[in-house]
Structure formats: structure tokens, C-alpha cells
């Protein structure tokens, strides 16, 4: 990935879509070629695959360009207690602006959603959108998104799936999930910062007004008004994240070469091993589903008597990187009754050794804290 970004800047650095000279053409080919591969990687179509700055911007794009006209007073937006702030705050802002209600699905003791509760929430017909994470960034839960989408659609609601944690760690086919909007983010998929992806349903994208106005998203600009470019460019204003797309393209090539089935198997295996070994450490509680088949490669935990913040500091000294905090999921923290958690993430580059070192670091922390 680093090599691809680097080589782009050294050899093909010219603005895409503009000018006829050779360098610009090369940049366009690299950029649009990356789009094609990135779309295919997630099972999407090229021209309904829109590049944004990150997943957050992709969700806001939907909240502004689709939500401002589709959600009105008395309507509701349904999200869940396990969402990332990026999939909460845009809907709070939308609902406040439009006088709509924000509803939440709760999370069970073992970190899952209930389809019965979903049906109940949909039953009064007010829900215009269901927005849900494919994989929780705190609990690791893999949600049954295809089923959720089907039930929402049957109830007349549109759907947005936040795949930021899913796309990097398991085979994802957005065509099969069939949500109206599916978003993910580059930097979680071993790609660079500065790029996110929105796969949208063509009919919706075509009927939506644009979000950001500016260069590239127009067909022609008159004095009073303008006409919009075709998909996907209608939603990509200004200079595109060219190097970022090239870098993300290289990242998904790397993941494809390993094979997403293999990536998933590896993460399942490491997570299962970690859940097992964590039981050895006194005072540890791991959040989320107990069955490794139902969860991705993150484990959030709490160690009685040690604040997550201190735990992360001690692990860091032992060269084990874990993240402590609310993980941009304050509502979930509140529901779980903890101020924060410590979270270990596993990916293709991690091994059983890393899990062993984590366990050792947790034991060290207990010693430091004289527990």
C-alpha cells in the first residue's frame, strides 16, 4: 500500500478527469481502475461506488442528501445501542432538524441484537431508515444484516449498513446484503486515511440531490443553476482522493491475495484462542458474543480493579497495543455500565504469540496494581 501511494505521487501526480495530457490520463486510469477493483472487492458496482473522505462522511452524505427529504416530522430513524458515533450523531442531527424520532434497538447481555425487537420497532410503520453496524467495533458482534435489511424493506424502511469493521475482516457481498446504502472506511482495511466508500442503490442515488457542490460533480455550471454529473461523480465534489484510492486499491489487492475467507478464518481462530486464554486471567470480563462464529476480531474487556486507561499504559510498556476508551460508542458504554473498555484487535498480521503477550501483559498489570 505504501509503495502504491508513493509511486502514485512520484510518477502519476496529476489531477484526475481534467486535461487531456498523458499524465492526467494515467492518473484517471489509476483512480478509476482502483474504483473498479474496490467495488468488486465488496461485491458492489463500479458506478454506484462513491469515494468519500471516510465512513463518517459517507453516512453524513446519506443523512443530508437522502435524509433531508426522506425523513419528516413524525417519522423515525432506527439505530442500535452498539453503533459507532459516526452512525449515531448524523441521525441525531437529522432527527432534530426534521422533527423526527430516533429509536434504538437494545443489545442483549451477550452483545447481540434481537430480531423480534426489530420487528416490534418497525411495526408502526414510522421507521424510514434502519442504520446498523455490520460488525460492532466494540463487541465484535456480526449482525445478521441481510435479514435486518429484508425485514426493514418489508416494513417500508430504507437501510444503511456500516461495514467499517466488516469489510476488512470477512468476505462481504454488498449485492447479496442488498442494503440501500453500505459504507466502509479505508484506514480500517489496511488502506490509507482520507478515503471512505459508499455503495448506494442506483435508483436512490439518481433521485437524490447532490451533497457537496463544486468541481467534478457537475455536468455544466450556469449562472443560476447547474446540472449534475453521472454517478458516481455526482457525489464526489472537488479534487478526488486519488492517492488514497490508489492506496486502498493496493490494500484490497493484498487482502484479496490472502483471500478474505482465509482472513476471516485466521481472525476467528485468534479470537477464539484469545477468549479462551482470557479466562485464565483473574478478574477479566470479555464483552460480546461468546461464540467465536458470531464475532469478528476485536475483544473488549475489563479487568476488575484496573481502569482501562491504566491497563493500556501498562500493555504499551510491554509492547502490546490495546486501545482504551469509549471507542466512539458512548451510548454502548452507558448501556454496559462501564466508563470505558480496553480493546484488543486482531488482524492478518497477528499471531498466537500476540495473544500470549497480551495475556502476559494483563498479568503484569495485575502485579503492578498489586491485585
Amino acid at each position, binding site marked *: 500500500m505504501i509503495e502504491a501511494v508513493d509511486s502514485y505521487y512520484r510518477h502519476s501526480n496529476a489531477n484526475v478527469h481534467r486535461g487531456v495530457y498523458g499524465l492526467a490520463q494515467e492518473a484517471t486510469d489509476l483512480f478509476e481502475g482502483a474504483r473498479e477493483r474496490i467495488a468488486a472487492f465488496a461485491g458492489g458496482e463500479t458506478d454506484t461506488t462513491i469515494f468519500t473522505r471516510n465512513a463518517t462522511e459517507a453516512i453524513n452524505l446519506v443523512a443530508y442528501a437522502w435524509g433531508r427529504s426522506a425523513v419528516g416530522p413524525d417519522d423515525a430513524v432506527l439505530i442500535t445501542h452498539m453503533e459507532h458515533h459516526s452512525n449515531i450523531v448524523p441521525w441525531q442531527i437529522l432527527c432534530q432538524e426534521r422533527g423526527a424520532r430516533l429509536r434504538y434497538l437494545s443489545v442483549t447481555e451477550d452483545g447481540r441484537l434481537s430480531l423480534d425487537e426489530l420487528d416490534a420497532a418497525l411495526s408502526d410503520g414510522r421507521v424510514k431508515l434502519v442504520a446498523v453496524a455490520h460488525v460492532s467495533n466494540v463487541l465484535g458482534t456480526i449482525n445478521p444484516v441481510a435479514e435486518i435489511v429484508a425485514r426493514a424493506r418489508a416494513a417500508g424502511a430504507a437501510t444503511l449498513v456500516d461495514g467499517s469493521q466488516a469489510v476488512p475482516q470477512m468476505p462481504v457481498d454488498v449485492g447479496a446484503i442488498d442494503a440501500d446504502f453500505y459504507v466502509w472506511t479505508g484506514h480500517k482495511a489496511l488502506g490509507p486515511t482520507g478515503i471512505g466508500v459508499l455503495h448506494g442503490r442506483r435508483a436512490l442515488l439518481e433521485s437524490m440531490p447532490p451533497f457537496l457542490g463544486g468541481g467534478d460533480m457537475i455536468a455544466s455550471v450556469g449562472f443560476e443553476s447547474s446540472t449534475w454529473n453521472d454517478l458516481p461523480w455526482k457525489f464526489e465534489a472537488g479534487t478526488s482522493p486519488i492517492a488514497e484510492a490508489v492506496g486502498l486499491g493496493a490494500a484490497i489487492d493484498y487482502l484479496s491475495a490472502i483471500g478474505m475467507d482465509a482472513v476471516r478464518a485466521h481472525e476467528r481462530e485468534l479470537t477464539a484462542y484469545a477468549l479462551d486464554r482470557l479466562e485464565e486471567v483473574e478478574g477479566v470480563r470479555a464483552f460480546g458474543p461468546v461464540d467465536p462464529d458470531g464475532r469478528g476480531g476485536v475483544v473488549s474487556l475489563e479487568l476488575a480493579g484496573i481502569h482501562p486507561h491504566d491497563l493500556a499504559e501498562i500493555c504499551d510498556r510491554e509492547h502490546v497495543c490495546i486501545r482504551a476508551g469509549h471507542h466512539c460508542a458512548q451510548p454502548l458504554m452507558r448501556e454496559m455500565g462501564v466508563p470505558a473498555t480496553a480493546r484488543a484487535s486482531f488482524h492478518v498480521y497477528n499471531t498466537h504469540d500476540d495473544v500470549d503477550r497480551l495475556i502476559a501483559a494483563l498479568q503484569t498489570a495485575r502485579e503492578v*496494581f498489586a491485585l
Partner: protein
Amino acid sequence: MDALYRDYILDHYKNPRNFGELDPHDREWLDHNPLCGDELGVHLVVDEDGTISDLRFHGQGCAISQASASIASEELIGRKIDEIGELSADWLIDLLGIEISPTRRKCALLSLKVMRGAATGDASWPE
């Protein structure tokens, strides 16, 4: 022995002094550390002559922020409320007696920020 998590720091963390609330109280302040979400609130009772006669803090946070609040609370009870605005970050860090890395500085200083806020209304971070 650990240079950061010294015995007396852990002791203050596990057995915080002056933890809790005061009702009635004369002054209060609540704030948090946006980096980690630590929250700290404080209640003060102030004498007619301006002396802090009682103080309780509450909230949750890491060992550093809790111990800092506990240690500071012992120092502040009995002081004049007018003095609190003068207390510097260095004063508190010296008081803690441990080496604070830049990353943990706000953990250590949250207690002084909140206590200063209650005394003077100044919501800035101590320098």
C-alpha cells in the same frame, strides 16, 4: 517498584480520601477529560472567612486522575478559596511526586482543573 504506579498512588486510587458528595455545598464543578472520558465532579463548603472547610470529589477515571484528586483534596481542605486560582500545574505534579508523561498530563491535572473551576469559574486547563 513501578515509577508511575507507586504504592501511595495505588493506595489513593484504591482508597480515595474525601470521595463522595456534600449536601448542602457552596460551590460545585464538573468536568471531563475529552481524551479518555474521565469525569470528575467536586463539591466545596466554604467558611465565612473564605476557608475551604470541606471538599468531596466524585466521578470515575484512571489511577492517576483518581489518586491526583484524592491527594489534592487533602491539601486543599483548610486553604483559602482565593488561593486556589494561583495553584499551578507544577504545584500539583510536584505534589504527586511521580514522573508524568505528556500523554498522562491531563489525567493528572483534571483534579486541579475541576477544583479551580469550583473556586474561580475558570474552565481552562492548568498550565
